């Protein structure tokens, strides 16, 4: 079976930065009820820069790999730089074509990161 690129499968099976931070500066929880994907993103910010990051949650291979790859990518970046990340940045990281149905899975980590950085309130949790 040759479904996902080797790298995606590797990030899915061995996600980087999976877990929790001791003292996160920003925490954001988001979910995609349609697929049942869920992510909690924790960022530690010092001098306007991401010095550490962790995530937990569950989801499909694409959303988990996207979270793992994005985490590696944004360490050391400034908040301003993070604000510049968009859909294309994530798709570039994944390096695969994502169809119209699964694009939401791929973009959930980005959505959580942007919301954390912009300081958005989480919507009322059930």
């Amino acid at each position: 079976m040759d479904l996902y690129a080797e790298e995606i499968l590797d990030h899915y099976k061995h996600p980087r930065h999976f877990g929790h931070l001791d003292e996160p500066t920003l925490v954001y929880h988001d979910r995609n009820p349609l697929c049942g994907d869920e992510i909690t993103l924790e960022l530690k910010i010092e001098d306007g820069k991401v010095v550490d990051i962790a995530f937990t949650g569950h989801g499909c291979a694409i959303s988990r790999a996207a979270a793992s790859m994005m985490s590696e990518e944004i360490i050391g970046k400034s908040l301003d730089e993070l604000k510049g990340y968009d859909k294309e940045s994530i798709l570039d990281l994944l390096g695969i074509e994502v169809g119209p149905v699964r694009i939401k899975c791929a973009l959930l980590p980005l959505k959580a990161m942007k919301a954390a950085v912009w300081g958005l309130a989480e919507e009322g949790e059930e």
Partner: protein
Amino acid sequence: MIASTSSVALDVQRIRADFPILQREVKGKRLVYLDNAASSQKPIQVLDAMDRYYRETHANVHRGVHTLSEEATTAYEGARAKVSNFIGACCPKEVIWTRNATEAINLVAYSWGRSHLKQGDRVLLTEMEHHANLVPWQILAAEKGVELDFVRVADNGALILDDLPKLLTPKTKLFGFSAASNVLGTLNPVKELTQAAHKVGALVLLDACQAVPHMPFDVQDLDIDFAAFSGHKMLGPTGSGVLWGRREILNAMPPFMGGGDMIREVKLRQSKWNELPWKFEAGTPAIAEAIGLGAAVDYLSSLGMENVYAAEHELVTYAMEQIQDIEGLKILGPRDRRTGLVSFILGNVHPHDIAAALDSLGIAIRAGHHCAQPLHERFGVPATARASFYIYNTRDEVDVLVSGLRKVAEYFSF
């Protein structure tokens, strides 16, 4: 309702020859289509009926006195009579065309619900309902101050009937439930539930989406009051659906939408409604789609619905036997008394990954919550994978599914 036979009841190879789409390849593999509970494929008989209509007799119905309009009207109303027969209705006027089951249920909620329910009345539903039989009632409840109650689902996928006496109160005006669950495959005891509802004077609305395409179905025998189903799940085209209702009840309901065709007499400030069924069919209807559904019903009738049920039952039983040995695979729903679909989870592999992986092998299954989020919440899973069978599926295809699932389990294991 169901006669059981042990032999293979359908000539599947002959049936397959009628479905052009089954010849196509997906990702370089022969298509194995196992998403029939979402929508079935169409035989050439249905495609031809619609094509012929457009090529030879298309005109608006009920309006012209010219030949084409008369032919179109005859074909359109003929299709209604076929459906009426197929579901054991007393007469075609109890069969109202809608776009799909969702519209049929909304029609009842908007027309009957708004005119017959008042604050404090209750509507009973079940935890296993498709969003189509949930959300219209939520909207109505918010608008009219109507309360919603729910029959719970047991771990084995059956409705918990012990609660019924408590849930069916004198205030309960309608009991809406599915004949069969689109996720669990559970076949609900329609007659028993209907009798219980009628005892407290509640009407019964049956979501028959997963029953009418798959088994003998008779509205009078079941003694229900409304039934809703979609043509596209039973070999018919999208855009064809049915609300069946008992004529006394339909007669006492106000129109759903206003416009042409649904009126008898129009003045500037008021109008008189047309009689059944046209009272509920405002505007130019989906004529070709109705004719297509009529052809679909002919096709199914020629196979015999007992045979359809028996063949599906045999296939799903075989599939369940085969997949249950796969490590980490858990089947949802009852072991028996079920329809021809099976939903499952596979360890920690997200159903989207299962479906994407199977798709790479040419196998189409459904993954997600199947428009039944509360039911998934009930079982503590965000999503499931579902294989659903129909008249053209074979044991070979089940084998392809099983070997595909084994590959999926291995591919994602860590």
